[in-house]
Structure formats: structure tokens, C-alpha cells
């Protein structure tokens, strides 16, 4: 009988446009779109920035000073530039503000003498701080100029450059690339599938409980010789399946975006993704997803059965959504790890366990504790749903 109810509810749910959008279309498209769009826009602006000719004013009473000459000798591969010589700062603010020049160096008259005497010179740089790209370019130029003067100074003094670098550090990292990326980016995965798992559960839950109440079909269903718990489980299975499907489609969308459409041009990330997509990883993820979506269904059903309209159900579930999403941010914090305390905290344990799975450092005992904790809270939520579903004031509109 549970299967008969499940089959009918699934058919009904799959014919609901809202559910299909929330369960399949949005999860599968959102990440390729976000990644594709952000990568294209970033690339476009980076290239535009690289090719843009920077108009630089050099303010000095001597046009042949060493600073200007060194700057002029920097190759265009570090960014094309046009140098304009000026004798004073008159109208400089206006020119920078209207972008007729992008930045200006004020080189003191004493610059060449100070350098010859191995002294420090102060160069003023006028710019607009909001143009982040220009600031990055000027820092590249200055780094080149400083190196040139430093090398010349050391040669003049007949000194070894090691004098200013007493320690040469060499890091030997024992973490695998998978571990590093897993720990850094592994928090993204649970964030995705928890949010989409929740949204995937939400619409069928509202439709199968509040919707049935509104359409007065629940009353008819309750006149049939089917125990209420079977009706509840049949409906709940559809909600769980929908949540798992939405979470899976969101991950599929992410992998499609990264792997098939090559939206991220980073070989290290690609290697890690290839390494992640193993049967063990997928199985582990489903092991965690199952109690999680049951838990979602278990907390949504009492809310949707209580609500008298679709709108009311949405407003009841919105704060729940925030409560669920909040622990997912823990995945982005670097120093919180899965241990014998966090493994007992629902949702937080799923987030941290996924991070460990991605990094390949999951402790099987902690994984079992996390799973069992989620199973326990999922069971409690189902029990709570059953109690609320049995309440007459909830089922009769």
C-alpha cells in the first residue's frame, strides 16, 4: 500500500512544474551558469585590463632622470603604457578624475643624486584607489624598478644579495593536492547539497500536505482503509526522493560545469575532481544524504500539515531554511574539523564529514557516529511528523 501511495504521489509530483523546476532545472543549471558567467566576466575584464594602455604622468623638472628611464625600459608584456612628462602637478587631480591619465609619479629633483649616494628616495604616486587593476599594474612596475635599483646598488657596493636574505626557506608539504583542495573547497559541496536538498524537499512537502488540504483531497484519502502511517510514509518517500534528486542534480550541475564545459581553467582542481568522482565517494555522499533528507522531510511535514495555505506553508518554512543553512557555513571555516564533539551535532557533522570525504581523510568511526546521529534525529523527526499528522485539527481544514 505504501508503494501504491508513493507511486501515485511521485507521478502527481513529477507533473508539478514548480517541483520540477526546484528539483531538476534549477539545481542542474545554476552552477554551470554561475561558474560560466563569473569565469567569462573575470577573464574578459582581466584581458581588457592587460591590454589597456596605462597613461602615466611623470612629474619632474628633469625628463632624463633614472626613475623615468627605468620605467620606460619595462617591457609591454607587463602591461602597455604611455609616459607623459610634466613639470608640475597643475590640473593633475582633474586629469586623474576624468581618466585622461590613470596615474602619476612625482619624482624629486634629487632622485639621481640620492640613488648615487645609496640613499632612500621618496616617490609620490597619485592615483584613484577604486581602480584596483591600475593599482596592481603600478605595483608590478614599482617592483621591477626597485629590483633594478637594488641590483645596481649591490653591484656598486660589491655586495652579495644574500646579505638581505639571511634565511632561504623551503617548504616540503606532505599534504596531497586532494587534501589541500578538499580542506579548502570541500566546504562548498555540503553547502550546495544541503541547500538544494532542502529546496528539493520543500515544494513536494507543501504540495503533498498543505496542497492536499487546500484542494480537499486529503479528507478523501483519509476515508480509505489505509493506516495513516502508511499514507505518511508513502508521501514522505516522495519528499525524500525529491530532496536527494535535487541535491544530486546540484552536484551533477557543478561537475558538468567544471569538467564537461571546462569552465574553470585550473588543472589542479580538475585532478581533484577526477579523484573525487569515485564509487566510494558517491556512495558515502548518499549514505549521508539519505538521513539528511529524511530529517528535512520530518521537520517539514509538521509545518506543512499545520499550514492552511501554500503561502502560509512557505512563510513557516522560510525561517527553518535559515536555521538549516546556518551550520553549512561551518564548512567554510578552516579550523573546525570533524571530531568526537562535532560528529554528534546534526547537519554540522554532515558538512564536516563531506569535507573530510573530499579530502580523503575521513575517520570511519567518526563517519559512523555522524551517520548514526543523523539517523537518530531523522527518526525523531519522522515520529514527530506522525504525531502531527494524526492530529485532527491539522488534517481537517
Amino acid at each position, binding site marked *: 500500500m505504501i508503494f501504491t501511495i508513493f507511486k501515485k504521489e511521485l507521478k502527481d509530483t513529477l507533473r508539478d512544474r514548480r517541483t520540477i523546476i526546484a528539483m531538476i532545472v534549477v539545481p542542474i543549471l545554476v552552477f554551470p551558469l554561475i561558474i560560466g558567467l563569473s569565469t567569462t566576466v573575470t577573464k574578459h575584464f582581466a584581458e581588457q585590463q592587460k591590454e589597456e594602455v596605462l597613461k602615466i604622468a611623470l612629474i619632474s623638472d628633469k625628463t632624463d632622470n633614472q626613475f623615468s628611464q627605468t620605467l620606460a625600459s619595462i617591457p609591454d608584456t607587463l602591461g602597455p603604457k604611455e609616459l607623459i612628462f610634466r613639470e608640475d602637478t597643475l590640473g593633475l587631480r582633474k586629469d586623474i578624475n576624468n581618466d585622461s591619465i590613470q596615474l602619476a609619479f612625482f619624482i624629486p629633483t634629487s632622485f639621481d643624486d640620492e640613488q648615487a649616494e645609496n640613499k632612500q628616495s621618496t616617490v609620490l604616486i597619485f592615483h584613484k584607489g577604486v581602480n584596483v587593476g591600475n593599482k596592481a599594474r603600478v605595483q608590478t612596475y614599482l617592483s621591477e624598478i626597485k629590483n633594478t635599483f637594488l641590483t645596481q646598488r649591490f653591484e656598486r657596493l660589491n655586495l652579495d644579495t644574500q646579505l638581505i636574505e639571511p634565511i632561504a626557506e623551503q617548504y616540503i608539504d606532505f599534504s596531497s593536492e586532494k587534501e589541500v583542495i578538499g580542506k579548502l573547497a570541500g566546504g562548498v559541496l555540503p553547502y550546495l547539497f544541503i541547500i538544494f536538498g532542502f529546496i528539493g524537499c520543500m515544494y513536494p512537502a507543501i504540495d503533498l500536505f498543505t496542497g492536499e488540504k487546500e484542494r480537499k483531497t486529503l*479528507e478523501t484519502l483519509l*476515508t480509505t482503509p489505509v493506516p495513516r502511517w502508511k499514507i505518511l510514509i508513502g508521501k514522505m518517500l516522495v519528499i525524500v526522493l525529491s530532496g536527494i534528486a535535487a541535491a544530486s542534480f546540484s552536484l551533477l550541475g557543478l561537475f558538468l560545469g567544471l569538467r564537461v564545459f571546462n569552465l574553470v581553467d585550473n588543472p589542479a582542481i580538475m585532478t581533484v575532481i577526477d579523484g573525487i568522482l569515485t564509487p566510494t565517494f558517491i556512495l558515502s555522499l548518499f549514505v549521508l544524504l539519505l538521513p539528511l533528507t529524511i530529517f528535512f522531510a520530518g521537520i517539514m511535514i509538521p509545518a506543512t500539515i499545520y499550514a492552511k495555505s501554500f503561502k502560509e506553508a512557505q512563510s513557516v518554512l522560510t525561517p527553518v531554511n535559515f536555521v538549516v543553512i546556518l551550520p553549512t557555513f561551518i564548512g567554510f571555516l578552516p579550523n573546525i574539523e570533524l571530531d568526537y564533539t562535532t560528529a554528534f551535532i546534526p547537519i554540522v557533522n554532515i558538512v564536516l564529514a563531506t569535507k573530510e570525504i573530499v579530502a580523503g581523510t575521513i575517520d570511519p568511526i567518526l563517519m559512523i557516529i555522524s551517520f548514526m546521529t543523523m539517523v537518530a534525529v531523522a527518526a525523531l523527526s519522522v515520529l514527530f511528523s506522525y504525531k502531527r499528522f494524526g492530529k485532527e485539527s491539522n488534517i481537517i481544514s
Partner: protein
Amino acid sequence: MIQVENIRKEFELTKKQQKENNTTDKFALAVEDVSFECQPGRIFSLLGPNGAGKTTTLRMLAGILKPSQGSIKINGIDIQKQPNEAKKVIGFLTGSTGLYERLTANEIIAYFAKLYGVSDADFEQRKEHLYTLLGMHDFQDQRIGRLSTGMKQKVSIARTMIHDPDVVVFDEPTSGLDVITAENIIKLISDCKTQGKTVIFSSHIMSEVDLLCDDLAIIHKGTIIHRSSMQDFRDHMQTKNLTEEFIRIINENN
């Protein structure tokens, strides 16, 4: 057969409802000390003004609500002790019955047949009989959302009767329906009687009661204030017609 003995139903009030009703009572009494019997092959009508307790009583008969006190037996089965056994022999139809808008008529009928445990052979036979009777063949594969009110009501009737119930409960079945659709319901109720089924229906349309009814009870403010056969009711009328007599009895008990 339906046997109702001293049933009482009270609903728990939320704090919001207490405030709205300006009361400190934790419970609201909907039905009290209601008893009656409906015999097979006879139509029993439960009459009463809005809010009298008709729907609550019928929902208890259909097993949707549980009585706070008293007992209900359907064909000798106690609905509180064996709800699913009792529900197998009941068909329940209301004027506001909802159907699954995204499913077709065929899918809905098949779904309810399965829920009632109708065998495949019986299902095909009963479906064919009902579809012919109600003229449903033309729209059997159309989704409910695309059907007219009349067509929907026919699907509801087929859904109610697909398991060939011995007891049929109609809660204001013609409420809000057009004359032609209402006529289908009247015919169905009449057919149920001919087939020897136990029929109970609630209504406040006296012409329907006059046409169909063998026995009646009038419920007001949750209690039965009159119970008799239709013949006795007609014989002892103190006014010109059924509607006036109904109003007189209600007013007498206000």
C-alpha cells in the same frame, strides 16, 4: 447498516481560537449524545442548519474524525476498534470533494481501487459499469484540471463507488453544483437504495429530502432534536410544507 450510539465530539481550541471566540474553555462541543440507526435499502437523511454538527457526525461515520465518546458500528464493525475494516465498506462523497488535478480520471479511479483492495478483475468490471452509467468514456484519459465541474463530479462518484461499498455517506453532495450535475447525484443516491445499500446523506435542500428520504433526523446545536420516518414526519406536520416544518422545529429548539 449504521448504528450510532451516544456519540460526542469535542474539538480542542487553540489559544488563538479561544481569543477569537472570547472563551476560556479549552474544548468546543460539536456533537453531543447523538444516536440513530440507518438500515440497508433505506435512505437516512441528516438535516440541520449550518454549523449544526452534520459534517462532524458524517466525518466520524467515515472514520476521518474519532468520537470523543460513544460508538459507531458499520455493518457491525466498530469503527474505533477496527477503522480500516469498517472503511472498506464505506463510500464517502461531499459536494466539495477535491480530486487530484494533475491526474487523469482513469488514474484516480485505479488509485482508489487499489487503496480499497479491489482485485484487477473486479476493477475492470466495475469501472466499465460506472463509466457507462455516468458517461465517462469520453474524458477518462483527460487530466482532472481540464474537466468541467460536472465531469469532475462524475469522477468523484466513480471514485466513491469503485469498491462497491455497502454503506454510502453523502455530505451535502449537491452543494454548489448546477442542476444537471446535482441530478446525477440524486440518481446515484436513488440507485444505491435500489441496490440495497445503506445510505446516509446530509442536506438542507428539502426538495431532495422529500424525493429521496425514508428516515430522517434533525440535528441542531450538536444534538438530535427530531428523529422519525419520512412518512411520520409528513403525517405530523404542523405547517404547510417541509421547509416550514423544518424551520418550525429548529425555532422551537432555539
